């Protein structure tokens, strides 16, 4: 029976894995995480809502505007007419409801820590790269390098994604409602990836640690990746996580494949607390 603290850490996406006893879950102290804030974080009110029309703005202008509005206490910001522009919504180190009405280009929502982002369209390459915490939900498809090097949070794409999703991932969860391309989880170091559809060749190539769950067919496994047994704990976690991810697809969890690392790493530092985010 999970403790209240464990539930809180699940909801916040602050669960991690360690190499020793592979696939075991280690929970961080949520109180510690809750007390964490950036020196320049803004006290925002989620009921205070405004809209930015992106049509005639470039990425630095939009990102500065988001920061200025958070400074004024706006907790819900809607981006209209994003037009697949690149690098929108990056560097948000704050609690915020960001609603994107349309599609983003490359490097959208990168290096964020804390916001909840909803994107009604598609995202290009490297969405949410380096995300530390928060939740990003994409209604349509995503390009390659989805969630590259994320350290925490939940990144959800309801459609299909390109190649190398979760490359160099160090924590958090990536959930893909459709299919995923080649080299998914390439050099993944920690965290979880869930793919409900099929996945391309070289899944989890050079995997250090972490777990990948696949609902459909796996074209091929990469070096160091091995199949593992699904546990009841895995099924419980998947059920809860897909609910959080707002994916209402019927999933037969018993038919899912679990992939973990088959390599013993001698010089691998398995202690990377999320509190290290203060270092960025």
């Amino acid at each position, binding site marked *: 029976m999970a403790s209240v603290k464990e539930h809180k850490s699940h909801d916040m996406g602050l669960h991690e894995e360690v190499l020793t006893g592979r696939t075991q879950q280690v929970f961080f102290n949520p109180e510690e995480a809750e007390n964490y804030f950036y020196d320049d974080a803004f006290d925002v009110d989620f009921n205070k809502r405004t809209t930015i029309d992106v049509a005639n703005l470039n990425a630095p202008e939009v990102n500065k505007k988001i920061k200025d509005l958070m400074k004024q206490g706006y907790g819900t910001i809607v981006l209209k007419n994003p*037009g*697949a*522009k*690149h690098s929108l919504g990056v560097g948000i180190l704050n609690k915020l409801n960001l609603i994107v009405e*349309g*599609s983003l*280009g*490359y490097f959208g929502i990168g290096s964020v820590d804390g916001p909840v982002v909803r994107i*009604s*369209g*598609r995202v*290009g*390459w490297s969405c949410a790269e380096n995300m530390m915490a928060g939740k990003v939900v994409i209604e*349509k*498809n995503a*390009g*390659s390098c989805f969630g590259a090097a994320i350290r925490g949070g939940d990144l959800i794409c309801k*459609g*299909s994604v*390109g*190649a*190398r999703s979760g490359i160099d991932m160090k924590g958090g969860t990536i959930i893909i409602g459709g299919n995923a*391309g*080649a*080299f998914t989880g390439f050099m993944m170091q920690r965290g979880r990836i869930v793919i409900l559809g099929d996945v*391309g*060749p070289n899944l989890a190539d050079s995997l250090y640690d972490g777990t990948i769950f696949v609902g459909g067919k796996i074209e091929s496994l990469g070096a160091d990746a091995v199949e593992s047994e699904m546990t009841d704990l895995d099924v419980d976690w998947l059920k809860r996580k897909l609910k959080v991810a707002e994916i209402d697809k019927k999933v037969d969890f018993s038919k899912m494949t679990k992939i973990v690392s088959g390599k013993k790493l001698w010089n691998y530092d398995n202690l990377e607390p999320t509190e290290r985010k203060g270092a960025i």
Partner: protein
Amino acid sequence: MCGIAGIIHKGKSTNVGSQMQQMLQSLKHRGPDSTGYALYGTGGSKDYILRFKVGENVKEGSSAVMEDESLYDQRRDEVNKKITEAGGKIIKQEQITPYSFRYITSFNGDLLDFARKIESVEMAEILSLGNSLELIKDIGDAKVVADQYGLNNFKGTHGIGHTRMATESGVDIRSAHPYWAYPFKDVSVVHNGQLTNYWNNRRALERKGMRFMSSCDSELIAVYLANKIRDGINLEDAMSSSLKDLDGVFTYMVATQDQLGMAKDSMAAKPMVLYESDDVVICASEEVAIRTILPHEIDTYDPYESEVKVWQA
């Protein structure tokens, strides 16, 4: 990093010149050195459209050697002579820039011989030869090149284009894309990426009599496909086999008189975004390019690794 884009209208001719210009201009940040277009007009005529150059653009930023412009006229006269000697007839000739020309010619013989005769003239390079293909490339961004060559009013069914960041070879027209798949009429190629077994393939193809005009690795794709087509292999199969034979990271597009195709390497390392509807297919390195044609919200996707697609006009 380079930018590539393509559009094909199904069963309809429209202003592909300005559409390609808009898309390529939005990809300028991916390649500011040169821009190229392969535009396909309505065709239908038995006469050939011949685009060729007899010199290089030597403006600031070019790596080409400065030449006396009077040489261009001499070379053009020699090309005219060669066309006549080969049994061709010049129906119409236009000088677009001091060094580049557009001819309408009639010819009934072997295209390879015809092309070889023209290119025997010093510095003469055929950019394209076909019944509907018009291949234009020069130094500068998409707008500069389109204005210079009057492409904004070009009507046709489809086209591909390229914005180049020079990495493997010089900033000049001969290294710019697209490449014509010499000597096959109406076949052109644009490429984003790097080929790592360029020399092995080039030597093998040269031994088979194929010609290379530049040291740009992208030209290899055009020549490779031309060789396959010469062997009677259809476009889609030729593209599929290229994924096995060409090593490196790449996404490329190829166009023929009535087809547009794309291929992506086995690691999917170079981007491509696709939009497909019943009327049109648009592909580009970035969705922002597609949005210049379709500014409203659309459903797009990335093709996967080792994927080959071909669409019909």
